[in-house]
């Protein structure tokens, strides 16, 4: 199977985002640290599986990793190196 068949939209991570940020994050905008593209989180590409311990959000333009979330042993760990900024509405 081509990995693009596994691709989801950032919108599918809305539940995890709510656990982490409480706020609705799929409409939050972020800038890709690799190519500079600005997009809403819900419009980015997401890789996540029902039984997986985490999720990977990638830029919908250049495919660079924007955010990694791992959930294990009662903790969430977030990697945010691929986002140069993230803008959240009040």
């Amino acid at each position, binding site marked *: *199977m081509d990995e*693009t*068949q*596994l*691709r*989801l*939209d*950032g*919108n*599918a991570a*809305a*539940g995890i985002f*709510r*656990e982490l940020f*409480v*706020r*609705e994050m*799929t*409409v939050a905008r972020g800038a890709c640290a690799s190519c500079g593209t600005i997009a*809403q*989180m*819900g*419009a980015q590409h997401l890789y996540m599986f*029902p*039984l997986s311990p985490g999720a990977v959000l990638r830029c919908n333009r250049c495919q660079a990793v924007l955010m990694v979330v791992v959930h294990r042993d009662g903790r969430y760990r977030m990697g945010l190196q691929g986002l140069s900024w993230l803008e959240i*509405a009040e």
Partner: protein
Amino acid sequence: MAGATLQRRLTWLQARLSRRLDETPRVKTLVLDVPGWPGHIAGQHVDVRLTAADGYQAQRSYSIASPPDDHDQLSLTVERIENGEVSSYLTDVLAEGEQLELRGPIGGYFVWSTESGGPLFLIAGGSGVCPLMAMIRQRAARGSRVPTRLLYSARSLEEIIYKKELDLLAERADGLEVFYTLTRDHPSGWRGGSRRIDGAMLAEVGFGAEQHPLCMVCGPTPLVEAVASTLVELGHAPDRVKTERFGPTGG
């Protein structure tokens, strides 16, 4: 839209199966009573969690198919997936009156309300029609006349979900038009499409890019990717094309 979305910690709610409706041989709609449901916007989803006696938990996301106006009641339309532990439980095992846990509403990106305007071009593959149906139902419930077209791809006539309701709504001639295309089998005399959605079909059925329609595409990932990139090739602005990919299958 963020302002219309409740900003609170998500909590698991108890839902009770009120009725289960047969939609197609593999698809059922679960009508759930959810006391304390905070309301939703068409296009949002819920997480459903099942817990076995030994504590094993399984969780899946399902789009809400009902419009926002049904207080304390939600409809989820679930397709039975081969070896899908959650979907087969929901379609075949859970009995009326029994409970399950859900939380939501979730997601503020792939949503539409009558205030969002149009024209609205909805493109569905298979059970990807579910969140789009919530939009169509809300449009009808509010008496909206936003020009709306649904292009719905299914494998065969019997696999079209909500066909009777869609045909009735289209007969109102209030600006909703519905087009079906069947990719595997079609009956003799079939007047709809009989191939996969392609550029020619999108151009023929959809609104022109110069009308700046809001395009919402939902279904299996390969269909969504093909449709979204073709819409952009046809001149639609990428930020007017919103997608909800289901992945290869659900579960």
